């Protein structure tokens, strides 16, 4: 409705369009403006490609770091699963006492699994693995003790430590061993890396915000005349800023896609080298790629950053442009 001329119906409202149709037109208009913004990018290919490449690189680094942390966590969690306590049995302990301890441990609520390795078993195993083979037959007696391997139910380092203390008090246990120091160290390193990655990611993502903001600012400056004309014929700020916001969204989409492609390419490139390393360590570790959810998450983050960057820019600069006269 007109402010100055009561009764002067203006615009599409004058046509008494049904609510449903207006709703459809609203989305249709948005879609049209989105496509128009895409066309705008298409018309200046070199500038657009440069911006998208910078965004892609800026997004690739946090994505890669995220994958790195994810894979590290996978490795360290597989170690945590193996937080195993070895109970070395005193020499010359009668077999029946050892068996009764095994039975007691099997009934223990804090313990998920108990494996008894007799000194004979240990010896044959050692012969097979060590390669000394027949040389060991020259030993007078078997120097290896009986061992009970215990897997705690709760694999957290602190809980395992408590269990270790309790089990080492058993009479027939010579000493109990839980190699836990390296585990806590590994956990500490992983969490430190996680925080470092978070900080670097934050920095790079704010770089994306600033890049988009600056690019949009330049394109606003380029279109200063056009914006003045639009203001003179009655365009609201919201109308003028919409194409720029869509440009920001497109930058986000393309930057996110580029980052995804680069990460995938990098993983494909590294796959061979990593499988070599893991084969040497006889590990069944396999590199985890980006999941579908992470891909969608990356895109959403990129789009939101693009939108936020362009919003910051249009809010400042479009209202600052005022027509200077007929």
């Amino acid at each position, binding site marked *: 409705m*007109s*402010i*100055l*001329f*009561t009764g*002067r119906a*203006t*615009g*599409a*409202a004058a*046509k008494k369009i049904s609510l449903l149709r207006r709703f459809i*037109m609203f989305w*249709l*208009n948005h879609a049209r403006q989105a496509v128009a913004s895409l066309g705008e990018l298409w018309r200046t290919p070199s500038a657009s490609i440069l911006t998208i490449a910078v965004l892609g690189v800026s997004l690739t680094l946090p994505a890669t770091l995220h994958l790195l942390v994810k894979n590290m966590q996978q490795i360290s969690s597989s170690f945590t699963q193996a937080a195993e306590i070895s109970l070395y049995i005193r020499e010359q302990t009668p077999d029946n006492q050892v068996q009764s301890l095994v039975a007691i441990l099997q009934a223990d609520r804090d313990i998920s699994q108990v494996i008894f390795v007799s000194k004979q078993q240990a010896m044959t195993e050692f012969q097979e693995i060590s390669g000394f083979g027949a040389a060991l037959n020259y030993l007078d007696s078997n120097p290896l003790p009986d061992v009970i391997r215990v897997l705690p139910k709760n694999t957290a380092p602190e809980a395992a430590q408590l269990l270790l203390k309790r089990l080492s008090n058993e009479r027939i246990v010579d000493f109990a061993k839980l190699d836990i120091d390296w585990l806590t160290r590994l956990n500490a390193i992983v969490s430190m890396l996680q925080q470092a990655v978070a900080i670097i990611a934050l920095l790079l993502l704010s770089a994306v915000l600033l890049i988009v903001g600056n690019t949009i600012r330049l394109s606003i400056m380029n279109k200063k*005349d*056009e914006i*003045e*004309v*639009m*203001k*003179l*014929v*009655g*365009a*609201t700020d919201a*109308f003028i800023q919409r194409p720029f916001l869509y440009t920001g969204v497109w930058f986000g989409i393309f930057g996110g896609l580029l980052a995804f492609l680069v990460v995938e390419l990098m993983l494909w490139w590294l796959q061979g080298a990593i499988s070599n390393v893991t084969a040497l360590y006889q590990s069944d570790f396999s590199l985890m790629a980006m999941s579908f959810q992470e891909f969608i998450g990356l895109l959403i983050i990129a789009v939101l950053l693009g939108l936020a960057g362009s919003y910051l820019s249009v809010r400042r600069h479009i209202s600052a442009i*005022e*027509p*200077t*006269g*007929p």
Partner: protein
Amino acid sequence: MLQFDQVSKSYPGGFVALDRISFRLEKGEMAFLTGHSGAGKSTLLKLISLIERPSAGRVLINDIELSRIKRSQIPFVRRDVGIIFQNHRLLMNHTVFDNVALPLVIEGFTGKEMVKRVHAALDKVGLLDKVRCLPATLSGGEQQRVGIARAVVNKPPLLLADEPTGNLDPDLSKDTMRVFEAFNQVGVSVLVATHDLGLVARMKYRTLTLKHGRMINDGLLQYQEPV
């Protein structure tokens, strides 16, 4: 409909562009605004289109004081006032159609209704055959008429023109004025700023003359053709 009440406008530095201007333009009236360059014609038009605000006095349209209009409402006021610029101010990388359609797109028109109105406006200024051209391929007079079509396409009740004949030869100037007359005859109020005194005298419309920011004449202009 348009009323100036003791309006003054001074710019920072002490330059007084308008000095206590008062006049009324009735609904459906057509008037010329003349004066040498620097006399305040453009400033007066800027006050109506809310590009500038007066330093003192009141500008009213339909008894609504423009100083009460909030910044966010300015676009809606400008939709009621068609403005024609001396330097056309067309979007040079868009077609004639897109240029004329701009005010309609802003108001939310789409599809057939928009096309119909754009064609009607271009038909009135005689440029229907140039609808797909870029403004750069048109002559100065044609560009001016595209600007006119854009100003009238959403049928504003008030039409302002700033030196619309500034760069045109006498024949084209006369044609352009005829276009304004045609709009005036269908009830649009028209205010044309021009320094083409000969043309103004021949047209025989009310003429407001400014000199150094003051109104020195309001009425028909007596003018003798130079011998």
